[in-house]
């Protein structure tokens, strides 16, 4: 059995890019796109962003705008029709996005000779009827400092937060106060964040995030605090150095740039993060967060 290579990852993401181009008017649900390329739904969007340099949402939006641009040039449809076609409900919203992308309002763009798309790192633009064979991957994170670690399953007490990622602090406050007064925050306790949704793809009000604290077998769930087990096994771990709101960049580098070059496949369980310092007494730029991405056992990767 051979190991997966960067080429395999590129081929699979390439299939997604082609599928999006051919189905620009479809719903393009993330789960469906992930399945198409045989990626776990937990990791697909981060792999995509790390490799392509844009999120799925940004990519779809840009391609729809580029299609609109060629319709303006080559067709005779009205700007309003083209706007609706590109998924915009109002002429104003379309004009605003279009201008941001091409530097000219749609009507003006139609009358000028030049037809140029802004440069993107993947090099992929809307080209009807053309197959996507190659795209450029980012590889900033290709040489990031990553360690492979074997973890035993961890029993954690947790509270679930549903809402904007920036507001998880209140949930942590509640969890730590209740556990702290009962003596569960003694030496060696780990503070873990388990994010089931990505802030870049899920609407803020629907993001599910578990604030978790490692506990022993003596902890019994009570007062709304529940217990779950964080999966053990092999993980790729890297440290994010800086503010919490910037953690997505490190996820994208680890999953979309380091992993594809590592010969490894991701496992179908969520990533998690471990907070190493107290945000109340640490400046945001000094915060340290370990990010763990679950790996499949080497050699067990199924090739499809």
């Amino acid at each position, binding site marked *: 059995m051979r190991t997966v290579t960067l080429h395999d990852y590129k081929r699979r993401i390439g299939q997604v890019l082609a599928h999006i181009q051919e189905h620009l008017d479809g719903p393009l649900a993330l789960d469906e796109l992930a399945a198409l390329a045989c990626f776990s739904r937990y990791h697909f969007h981060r792999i995509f962003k790390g490799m392509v340099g844009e999120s799925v949402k940004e990519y779809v939006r840009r391609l729809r705008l580029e299609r609109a641009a060629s319709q303006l040039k080559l067709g005779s449809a009205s700007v309003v029709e083209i706007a609706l076609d590109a998924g915009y409900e109002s002429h104003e919203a379309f004009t605003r996005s279009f201008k941001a992308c091409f530097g000219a309002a749609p009507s003006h763009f139609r009358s000028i000779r030049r037809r140029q798309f802004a440069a993107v790192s993947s090099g992929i633009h809307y080209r009807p009827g053309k197959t996507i064979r190659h795209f450029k991957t980012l590889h900033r994170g290709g040489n990031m400092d990553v360690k492979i670690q074997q973890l035993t399953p961890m029993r954690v007490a947790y509270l679930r937060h549903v809402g904007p990622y920036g507001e998880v602090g209140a949930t942590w406050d509640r969890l730590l*106060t209740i556990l*702290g*007064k*009962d003596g569960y925050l*003694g030496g060696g306790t780990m503070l873990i964040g388990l994010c089931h949704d990505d802030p870049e793809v899920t609407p803020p009000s629907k993001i599910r995030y578990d604030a978790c604290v490692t506990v022993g077998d003596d902890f019994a769930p009570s007062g709304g605090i529940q217990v779950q087990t964080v999966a053990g096994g092999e993980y790729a771990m890297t440290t994010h150095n800086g503010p919490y709101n910037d953690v997505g960049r490190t996820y994208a580098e680890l999953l979309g740039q380091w992993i594809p070059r590592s010969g490894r496949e991701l496992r179908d369980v969520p990533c998690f993060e471990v907070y*190493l310092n107290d945000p*109340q007494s640490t400046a945001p730029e000094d915060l340290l967060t370990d990010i763990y991405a679950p790996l499949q056992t080497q050699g067990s990767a199924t090739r499809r």
Partner: protein
Amino acid sequence: MKTAEKVDLYREFSKEYAATRDPALVKVGPATYLSISGKGAPGGDGFSEAIGALYGVAFTVKMTRKFAGKGDYTVSKLEGLWPDFTSGEVIPDKNQWNWQMMIRTPKFVTEKDLAQAVAVLLKRGKGTEVQRVRLESLKEGLCVQALHVGPYEKECTTIAAMKSFAEGEGLKVHGVHHEIYLSDPRRVAPAKLKTILRLPVEKAAE
């Protein structure tokens, strides 16, 4: 009148924590600490366990008070007291060093808070080291202070500069030296570690 705002001692007493690479004089008022003492090499087993116990007590005290609606505060940075080895005598073996690790704590924290936290942690089986944690006060008064950037082993250079600064001011160092840890040594590269060094001083004899 008391406000509902959260107490942050590091911010409240920011003047006492002001430090640059150049030594300067600071006045340090009386302060209360949760502290644990021990003997042995820094970073060794006993040392790490003691720090774990100290943090366990600090967070348990804070959360117990907070849960009871007695006001919230930030758990301050780790500090330590170490013997002064730069006075010329032979530096003893690391395993013989006496140290005291501390976390500054608001004055409203009482012995009763401490005893209650220790009892809860013992009940949870968090190790007997928590029984060594004490509530202590320090009155350092006038001090020479500087920011040391680099490995702990190289502190002697900064301390030498602080001492010669004190001398120039007609002062001499008395007592142990005090360190305030701004960086996490588990993760920050030794060359980038930031530590505030503090030496209590008094008027030198004529």
